[in-house]
């Protein structure tokens, strides 16, 4: 018999751990990431590797400063997940310092300064993303043309040059352009949706070229998370439902005033990544079942409003952060009826 103080019930456990949950999330990122690499090349991988390293280093550094145990925190993989989600959101042409600033604001400011895992009110990856999006709009909106729209994605050495100093590469403009959502916004009022789709090199079958398959990849990953019960259906379902319904409402039959079809919105930009991977961050989301429906719907609405009427091509990050603000209030207002209490 061990001589430790008697433990409190329950004495048995299902055996899950935080790191296992995080590992499933990382696994679920694989199909979407693969599609992203296929369409945008090595830059995505550079972002992934460098951000994960920087995240682990900065988390370790802050934990040392805070005099907390470093290894248990690194082993829970939460910093890795934050870095991966942030890396997937950054453009593949992002120079290293952009990632560093983003990671600093994500891990150090957004997470550790609030007390570390579980105490941060805002999604750390989105905090980092929004800081660099607002501070460095040029670098942040300079996306590569996807495979298919151009024959010449940057090769490995060119990608290295872009990563270390994007401005040095001659003729970088040949590779880059606006994303599908962005160019659709720019053209609004000029052409019918169908005409624009045929004329624009970045438009695909039903959404942006490449983006539609990247979204399919993240959708599969999300379904895996649902199947594994890592996330609940409430948030992704309501994000997608509200976004789709609003898009349908303002689709306007594909006229020149249209804000895009539901399919374009559901499979364009960061929709699936946002709905399944970012909005579902448990720490910053609403936690009551009904609250999660409200929370998801709020995100869906804000994404659409920003995409259709705002100044940014995509609105997932802002939508998630705004909903983070509302989460505590939503939770307070949507407390479920306890067993044995009046209906």
């Amino acid at each position: 018999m061990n001589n430790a103080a008697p433990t409190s019930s329950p004495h048995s456990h299902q055996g899950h751990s935080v790191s296992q949950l995080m590992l499933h999330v990382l696994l679920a990122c694989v199909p979407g990431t693969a599609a992203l690499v296929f369409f945008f090349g090595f830059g995505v991988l550079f972002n992934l590797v460098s951000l994960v390293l920087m995240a682990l280093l900065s988390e370790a550094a802050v934990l040392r400063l805070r005099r907390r145990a470093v290894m248990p925190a690194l082993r829970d993989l939460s910093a890795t997940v934050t870095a991966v989600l942030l890396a997937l959101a950054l453009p593949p042409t992002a120079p290293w310092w952009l990632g560093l600033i983003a990671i600093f604001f994500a891990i150090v400011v957004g997470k550790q300064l609030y007390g570390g895992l579980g105490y941060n009110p805002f999604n750390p990856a989105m905090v980092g993303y929004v800081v660099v999006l607002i501070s460095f709009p040029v670098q942040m909106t300079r996306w590569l043309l996807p495979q298919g729209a151009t024959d010449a994605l940057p090769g490995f050495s060119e990608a290295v040059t872009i990563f270390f100093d994007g401005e040095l590469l001659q003729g970088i403009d040949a590779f880059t352009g606006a994303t599908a959502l962005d160019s659709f916004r720019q053209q609004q009022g000029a052409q019918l949706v169908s005409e624009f789709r045929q004329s624009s090199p970045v438009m695909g079958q039903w959404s942006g070229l490449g983006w539609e398959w990247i979204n399919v990849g993240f959708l599969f990953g999300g379904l895996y998370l649902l199947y594994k019960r890592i996330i609940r259906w409430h948030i992704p379902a309501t994000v997608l439902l509200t976004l789709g319904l609003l898009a349908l409402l303002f689709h306007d039959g594909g006229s020149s005033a249209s804000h895009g079809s539901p399919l374009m919105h559901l499979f364009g930009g960061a929709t699936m990544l946002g709905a399944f991977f970012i909005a579902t961050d448990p720490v910053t989301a609403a936690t009551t079942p009904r609250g999660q429906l409200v929370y998801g719907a709020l995100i869906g609405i804000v994404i659409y409003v920003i995409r259709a009427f705002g100044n940014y091509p995509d609105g997932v990050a802002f939508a998630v952060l705004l909903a983070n603000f509302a989460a505590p209030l939503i939770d307070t207002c949507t407390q479920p009826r306890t067993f044995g209490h009046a209906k």
Partner: protein
Amino acid sequence: MNNALPKLWSLPGGIHPPENKSQSLNGPIRMAALPPQLTVPVTQPDYATPQLCVQVGDRVHKGQALVRAAQSSGLLAHAPAAGVVSAIAGYPVPNASGLPELCVVIDTDPTDTRWAKLKALDYPGAGIDTLIERIADAGISGLGGAGFPTQLKLHSALQQVDTLVLNAAECEPFITADTALLCERAAEVVTGCMILLQITVAARCLIGIEDNKPQAIAALQQHCSDARLQVVVIPARYPSGAENQLIHILTGKEIPSGTLAVHSGILCHNVGTAYAIARAVVHGEQLLSRITTVSGAALREPANYEVLTGTPVAALLQHSGVDHTQLSRLLCGGPLMGIELPHAQLPVTKTTNCVVATTEAELPSPPPAQACIRCGLCVDVCPVQLLPQQLYWFARSKEYTKAQAHNLQDCIECGACAYVCPSHIPLVQYYRNAKAGIREQSDKHQRADYAKQRFEVHQQRVALVQAQNDQRRAERAAAVKAQPAAAAGTSAQDAITAALARVQAKKAAQSIDAGKQDDSK
């Protein structure tokens, strides 16, 4: 027996932990050998002082009462075997507080096996009061876990209930005491049911049992010939055996928070209790033993035992071949709601349904708790539909008002939340602490209110006395003022008249003297 498939209501939440029940169901119920010493707790409900009727050195026979019943609210304890009382003192018993309870220690005499039973009752002919009195005389308390005196529960239920629920769910892993009882002695359990029906005059009795006990179900169904009895097979899911949860599954009724099942017309008893009632009524036997599951990976032969109350847990472990090198923790009850025993010398009590001698491999020690990531897995499994992650924050920061607003008091401490928590947070411990804190706070408030009331009454009394004194003083002052004046008035008058008289007398005397002098002149 009613064969129609009854409608079942579903339990919100719940978990499916590994059952670990088969290992203790390999053989028949064993009789635990008589130990050299029995430590019999004589704890009374609400920790009232027990009125002992034996002294150290007394010889007791099997079935002799050790305490007098304190009116009707007490719980009788009997000597489980003949012997000599060697000590009466506080001993540690399996309880959550870890505080010692008053026990009578009997050095047993294996040669004296006579059992002074009560007179057997002819139960269909016996009246309700006779039956309840018999249950009290036999010292029967709820064998499911709470250990509340059965006669009290029945008294409160008289003329109140239409449905009797017999709890055979036994949803917690490892525990098979009720299952073993049903497999071997279903007939007497059913007799106990019939007696309970006779006492409560309930219209029906629903026997709830989980579907993972086919043998016990078959045995029950074989004996349920009365139309009022209905064996209801429910899906196995922890904690379907918790009283209010089982009632909800069987009847669809939610027992309102803060009330008892009887207030909703339902009485719930454990099958073990029904069996003890049958033995007491039909055979006149006091409750001296119970069936206890002894299981866990540290044992060679897990089994169910019929154990005399007061038998040390160590004796049971010995019978089952304990491997002390493997033993990591000793649990009383199951792995989800049981308590960890500090050592094996603690006695088996009327509520000890299971002892688990486990190994580190079987039930690993909890790793250090990590931060709550609000994943909400606990929300999904909570059978009471609380928000465990919110309650955790409130309990941690001692925000008791918020915890109460989130209905902490409705938590049944089933442990489902902590079972699934990926951060391994001992949530139930936090809730228990917070509940204790709230109790303490409300006690403090009550004491403060009481002190305030006393102070106010005291103030009023002081003011009243003051007022009375003032009034009395004023009256006295007024009286004093009026009296001396009157007294002075009369005496002054007298003095004046007296003085006048004296003066006149003097004058007269002087004039006579003068006349005399004049005359002499």
